[in-house]
Structures are given as C-alpha cells and as structure tokens.
C-alpha cells in the first residue's frame, strides 16, 4: 500500500508544542478529515508534510520513501499536492494560466529546448492548455478562463486552486479549508468533486471547519487538540466521543 504515513511527528516553535507524537496513515483513494479547534496544529501538519516547515521529531513517509527533509518542490514531485488556507493564486495571471502552471510536474523539455523554443515546447504548451481547459469545463468555470484570477469570486478562486493542484495528477491532495467562503451549493459541488477524485484513487486529506461538510464526505476523521490526536474514527464515532465534544464540537 502506498500510504502517506506520519510517524510520531512533532513540531515545537520555541517552547510551544504545535504538534506532538502524531502518528497517522492516509490511504490512497480515501477521504480523511483532519479537524480540531483553531491552533490545534492542523495547518502545521500540512506544512510539515509539504516541506514548508521541518518537523522537530518523527518522520513522514510516502510509499516507504522519506518525505521529511526533502525540499518542497521535491515533495510536490513525489505526488503530494496542496491548497492553501488563504487562497494563493497568481493574481496577475489568467484563470487558465494559473491552472497551466500546475502541469509543471509533467514538463519534460530541457532548459535548452525551452530557451530555443523547439517544437516540443509548443506541443507541451498546447497540450497543457487543452487539459486546463478540460478541467475548467469539468468544474463548470470555463467561462472564466481568460479572466485575471484576482477578479473572480472567492469561492471560484478556491476551485481554481484545487484545479491547479489536480493538474499535478497528485497521489495525495491536501486541502486546507477548501469550503471556507463557499455557499451551500458550491460546497456541495466541491464535495462531489472530492468524492470523484477519491474514486480515481487520489488520497484526500481534508482540513475543514464546516462540520456538515466533513461529516458528509470523510470516511475517516482525525481530531487534533493542542497538537495531539484525541480521536480517530468514522463520523459517527467521532461525533459521540466525549473528548471531541468537550474540545471542539461543544455540547
């Protein structure tokens, strides 16, 4: 199994333990939720997996390959994609170009060929643009293709970010609050998209505060509080867990 595994992962910033002794396994084709109150360490976990910050302890592996210690772009090339809590699109670029950038992992032309504009460069460009167009069509946003990314609605920007991550054809996709700022219809559409991805074999790690959304689509839910795992299980078991109710859901 090509799981993404966290093994006794820990991170402290000075004296503050942001994450401690966290062991989890995310399976391909499965939707796992990572929930917990603000400051529980969820985004820190995602940042450690994607190499933006180095863990203080423990290890991260993908299919037995060591992930921690690698550089962010190397981790991306291993097949781990992410979105950001506060949407980070290239605002000057068009919606289409934002997605095309995501295909970088599939680029095979050398720097020299690229500098000289040899035919494969243009083939690749055409190919990436066509695929980006297909993604936009599939997500129902094709009419915005030529718009500067900063000018479309916030919910749509989140979707474009998801598409950009998908352009990498990742094995694992880490979504940091993808439904934040979306209305009910939009988040339901997003839910359907995420289920389709999982059905295609992509392992999904979902950080989200919208409980209805999480409970509806996640097959496994892990609850963090103050950097520690306090519960794991299906939506039903987590919802009834007294520790979770006390720390997060509230009575």
């Amino acid at each position, binding site marked *: 199994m090509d799981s993404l595994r966290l093994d006794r992962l820990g991170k402290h910033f000075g004296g503050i333990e942001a994450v401690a002794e966290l062991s989890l396994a995310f399976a391909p084709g499965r939707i796992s939720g990572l929930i917990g109150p603000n400051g529980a360490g969820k985004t820190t976990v995602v940042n450690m997996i*994607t*190499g*933006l910050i180095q863990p203080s302890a423990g290890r991260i592996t993908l299919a037995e390959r060591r992930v921690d210690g690698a*550089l*962010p*772009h190397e981790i*991306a*090339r291993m097949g781990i*994609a*992410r979105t*950001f809590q506060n949407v*980070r699109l*290239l*605002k*000057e*670029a068009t919606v289409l*170009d934002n997605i*095309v*950038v*995501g295909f*970088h*992992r599939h*680029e095979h*032309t050398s*720097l020299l060929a*690229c*500098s*000289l*504009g040899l035919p494969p*460069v*243009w083939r*690749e*460009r055409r190919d990436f643009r066509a695929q980006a167009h297909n993604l936009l069509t599939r997500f129902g946003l*094709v*009419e915005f*293709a*030529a718009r500067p990314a900063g000018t479309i609605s916030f919910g749509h920007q989140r979707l474009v970010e998801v598409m*950009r991550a998908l352009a*990498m054809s990742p094995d694992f996709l880490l979504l940091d609050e993808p439904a934040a700022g979306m209305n009910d219809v939009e988040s339901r559409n997003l839910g359907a998209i995420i289920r389709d991805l999982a059905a295609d074999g992509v392992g999904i790690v979902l950080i989200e505060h919208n409980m209805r959304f999480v409970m509806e689509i996640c097959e496994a839910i892990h609850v963090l509080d103050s950097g520690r795992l306090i519960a794991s299980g299906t939506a039903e078991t987590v919802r009834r867990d007294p520790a979770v109710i006390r720390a997060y859901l509230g009575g």
Partner: protein
Amino acid sequence: MGNLVATYRPLFDLICIYAVFAFSQYVALRAGLFSLATAGFASIGGYAGAYLLKETALGPVLSGVGAILCGVAAGLFLSLPLARLRGAFQAIATIGFVQIMVSLSLFAAPITGGALGLNAIPKVASSGLLVAIVAVLMLLLAVINRGGIGRAFDAIRQDYTVAASLGISTNKYSRYAFALSGAIGALGGCLLAFDTYSIQPDLFGFPLLVFAIAAVILGGRSSVAGPLVGTVFLMVLPELARPLADERLLLQGALLIVVIIYWPRGIVDGLVRRWHDRDAAQDPQARRDRHGLPAA
C-alpha cells in the same frame, strides 16, 4: 537627410546597446530576482570582449562569445550564494558585486587599463548588427516567456511558496535567470566596447545600474517591448531637452518617481492593461469572440 542620419546614428547605436542592458535587468525581475547586477555583468563583458579583441587573434565574433561566456560564469557564480536569498538581500549583495567590479576594473590596470580604460578598440559593431541583436534578443525572450521557463518565472515571482508547492525548483530557475541576465548584460558591455572605441570603469558603475532598473520600470516589466520603450524614453528625452542634458540623472530619477506613483505598470504594460480594460467594457459576446471562446 544624410546629415541627419550622421547626427543621430551614435544615439541610435547607444539606444540599441542600452536596450540590451535593460533586457538583462528585465530577465532578473521577470524571474522574481531582485538582482541589480547588470552593470557588473556589463563591465565583465565589456572588458573581456575588448581585451580578447585587442590582444588575441580570436576576431570579433569569438571575442563576443568569450565575453558572453564570462557573463554566464559571473551569473552562475553570483547565483551560488544568492539564489537562496530573497528580495532586499539579493539587491544589496548585487550592488556590492557592481562596486567590486568597478574597483577591480580600476585596479587590474594591466588588463583593464585602470582609470583610463581601454582605448583604440577596433569598431566592429555596425548599426545593422546592433538592430539585429536587439531583434534576436527580443524574439528569444518572447519565446522563453511563453514556454515552461516563463511559466516558472511567473510563478516564482508572484508567489515563491506556491511555485515550490507545484514542484517548481526555485533554485534551478533562479540560477538560470542569473546566468541569462549575466549573458545578456555581458553582451551589452561587449557591444559598447565594440561600438564606441573606448571603455572606462565609470561606464559600468552606479549610473548604469540605475539606468537599467529605470528603463525596465518605466517601460514595463511584463511585456518584452517594455525595456526597449523605457530605454528609448530615457535616452531620447535628454536629447529633446538639450539644456537639461547635464541633468540626465536627475531627470531619470524624477521620471522614475512619477511613473511609479502614477503608472506603476510602466508604459507598455500600462497600455496593454488599458486595452484589456476597454476590451472588458465591451459587450460580453464580442469579448468571447476575441478570446476564441464559444458562445455562452
């Protein structure tokens, strides 16, 4: 008529050469580097080209190639410590590089001629050659912009973290940009030596550094035509206002401030933007047609 050409040909040549400097700066900015090293690269290219042409039997073409290779080497060398730095740190370190090159050219008198510079360099550059070089350079940069390198540059410039999260090696592309900026800057320096008979250290100092960045910001950082338009503007304006020619630097600085405040995208990108806005104000179907999209 013949008189007019004779009068303005030197200015025309200089515009072509200084446009090359602007392109060297443009590549760095486009790639998200805060490098101000162009003047230093120009110095290396100028002295290397002039030295090879005068003291060896390589001939103009190979001397030029040698100068460009020296620029590439300098760019790669600078990128070793600087590709990992960001923003202001890169700017300060590259200003230091320019100052070192000025000092080196003053002190390495056996090669550079010291403060007197190198003189009696054979004039091997013609106006036609200069135009051709600028045209080829613009074509090359346009090609680079549209392919994978341009996409990587855009991503790194706009959001470093996002670029890395998409698998883009920011180090690799920063190194490439330093090398390319070095090559183009050295080419410009070499052309200056091949066109104007003599070079001195003060040609490649702080004023050139300011000129290069001013030309790109004035003309536009995004479109390939930007640096060229910025150069023309900066070179022609003092000629038009002859009485102010001595205050060239002052004029340049004042213009830069005004443009940054009122037209931050620069002349070319500002115009392009305006055209797009007008385009967006038209009826939706005309817009869709223009972008080749099917009817809604």
